[in-house]
């Protein structure tokens, strides 16, 4: 039935823990690093109703070094987060979903809760004929599965032997549609997960500006806007992409990585300031200067939220803040110390360069 054996789709079924809608969405967004098209379906983990992440890998496999390597990466990424999952790659989306669901059911049936995650199945595994899979792997719903089992229909092959008209009369169009999707006769209803819009801020000059003070002021204003956008999402920035568009000169761009997620405007300015001051702004007499400054938080992280606690000297590193004061976004002394250390590392790297701060070799 399938024209090519190249696996075009990867179906991932999280088994333990069963993710909620928000967690599944986050998982799907993380999968966007492997392919730009990701589909997610939420389920409660019951019979035939498993959460599903479907990756459309068409054109992406050469980037990842082939299907086996990508399969390993997916398995590693999920295992690193402690998520037991079933993953299957196939040329047909429906077949991949059916096999992954069947694998997930086998994992639940064989593995006790809390047991260590099983080794990921190789790509060539789960290659049993589709007709021998249980009908629950088609995701046709618990009621339909129960009704079919009452009449001793247990496998996909037995279900396929029943006439489509009889199936439609008894169960509606859903069962026939799943059968067609599993065989490749019908495409999966793919609803791509939208790409996350990173927090961003920009400042545009009315005319090219070559004044360092005005440029610094513009960067600070853009940082304030970026911090406001981050606060609205309750996130902190881990990496900022800076782009300074210059009239008559090529744009300057760069990325600054931060030690800890932060949305402290003063700290961000302390980190960006040495870099901004090194930028050649151009000559105003020649019509050169900065036209636009754009900041994009390309990587964000979680910032401890809640009521600020009193932490001795929890201010940004280098500001000389001492004594007792409220530390915004700090849960406890450990958070305050970690945040202060991250800010110290950022400042040292900003002035001394990348690689100036290291960990002792292991």
């Amino acid at each position, binding site marked *: 039935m399938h024209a090519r054996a190249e696996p075009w789709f990867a179906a991932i079924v999280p088994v333990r823990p069963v993710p909620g809608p928000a967690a599944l969405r986050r998982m799907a967004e993380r999968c966007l690093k492997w392919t730009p098209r990701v589909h997610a379906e939420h389920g409660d983990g019951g019979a035939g109703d498993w959460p599903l992440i479907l990756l459309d890998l068409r054109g992406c496999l050469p980037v990842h070094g082939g299907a086996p390597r990508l399969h390993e990466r997916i398995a590693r990424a999920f295992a690193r987060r402690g998520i037991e999952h079933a993953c299957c790659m196939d040329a047909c989306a429906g077949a991949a979903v059916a096999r992954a669901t069947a694998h997930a059911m086998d994992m639940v049936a064989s593995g006790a809760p809390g047991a260590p995650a099983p080794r990921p199945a190789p790509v060539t595994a789960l290659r049993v004929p589709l007709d021998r899979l249980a009908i629950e792997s088609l995701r046709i719903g618990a009621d339909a599965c129960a009704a079919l089992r009452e009449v001793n229909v247990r496998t996909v092959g037995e279900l396929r032997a029943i006439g489509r008209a009889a199936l439609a009369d008894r169960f509606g169009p859903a069962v026939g549609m799943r059968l067609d999707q599993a065989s490749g006769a019908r495409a999966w209803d793919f609803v791509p997960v939208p790409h996350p819009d990173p927090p961003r801020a920009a400042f545009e000059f009315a005319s090219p500006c070559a004044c360092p003070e005005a440029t610094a002021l513009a960067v600070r204003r853009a940082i304030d806007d970026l911090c406001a956008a981050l606060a609205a999402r309750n996130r902190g920035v881990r990496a900022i992409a800076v782009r300074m568009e210059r009239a008559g000169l090529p744009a300057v761009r760069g990325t600054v990585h931060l030690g800890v997620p932060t949305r402290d405007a003063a700290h961000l300015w302390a980190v960006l300031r040495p870099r901004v001051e090194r930028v050649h702004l151009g000559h105003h007499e020649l019509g050169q200067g900065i036209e636009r400054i754009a900041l994009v938080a390309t990587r964000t992280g979680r910032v401890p939220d809640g009521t600020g606690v009193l*932490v*001795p*000297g*929890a*201010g940004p*590193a*280098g*500001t*000389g*803040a*001492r004594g007792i004061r409220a530390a915004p976004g700090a849960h*406890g*002394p*450990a958070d*305050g*110390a*970690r*945040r*202060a*250390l*991250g*800010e*110290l*590392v950022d*400042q*040292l790297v900003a*002035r*001394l360069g990348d*690689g*100036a*701060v*290291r*960990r*002792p*070799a*292991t």
Partner: protein
Amino acid sequence: MLVQLAWRAVLQDDDGHPGRGRHVAWVGRAAWPMPDHLVRGLRGPVTAMFGAARVPSWPDARLHDRSILVDVPAHDDGARLWAIEQAARCPGVCAVVADGRGLSMPATRRLQLAAAGTLLLSMRGPERRAGERRTVPSACATRWWVTPAAGVREVPWLRAMHALAGRIAPEPAWSVRLERAKGLGIDPDACPEAVATEWWRTEGVPDAPARVHHAHVRRAARAESLRRARAS
């Protein structure tokens, strides 16, 4: 010595502020320690064979895990001073071990003001000793003179034992003398010269155990007698 003092700072920080996990900053390549020196108890299994007490929690890599190494340009004293000051001001740092060679009196005064609440250890270096140690002022609270003491390298059979042990490094030992204590009410001339051994770092204690101290005295005496015998 510096590793031992950094260990003391980490242990005191853990006792005073449990769970805070403040770090130790080593500023300047000259102040960087060997990575395996930051783990105490690496020699535990060997010393336990010879009757030493064995601590179940060893090897202890807390200092290794909570150390950051800062590399500053060797010729840029301003950048080094700035980095030391930033580290000393950081609330997430409990101790700063810095390469303080070439720092002037105003610079050390600036560092002393920045290091309120943080242990700051500044290495002066041997070149500052060449006839000008009295003329190079420093605002540091205490100044110590550390020299290598007679160790196992002087004793042939101990040196052979360490060679047979292979990768186990010999125990270095230092002679420590307090030169200056400003505002602490201590007379440096009244303080006897102390001997610090590698055991200090291993044990993580401020003073060497009595039996270790006696053993070191015996080794030093034997080394001295060997030197005399060679000289004669």
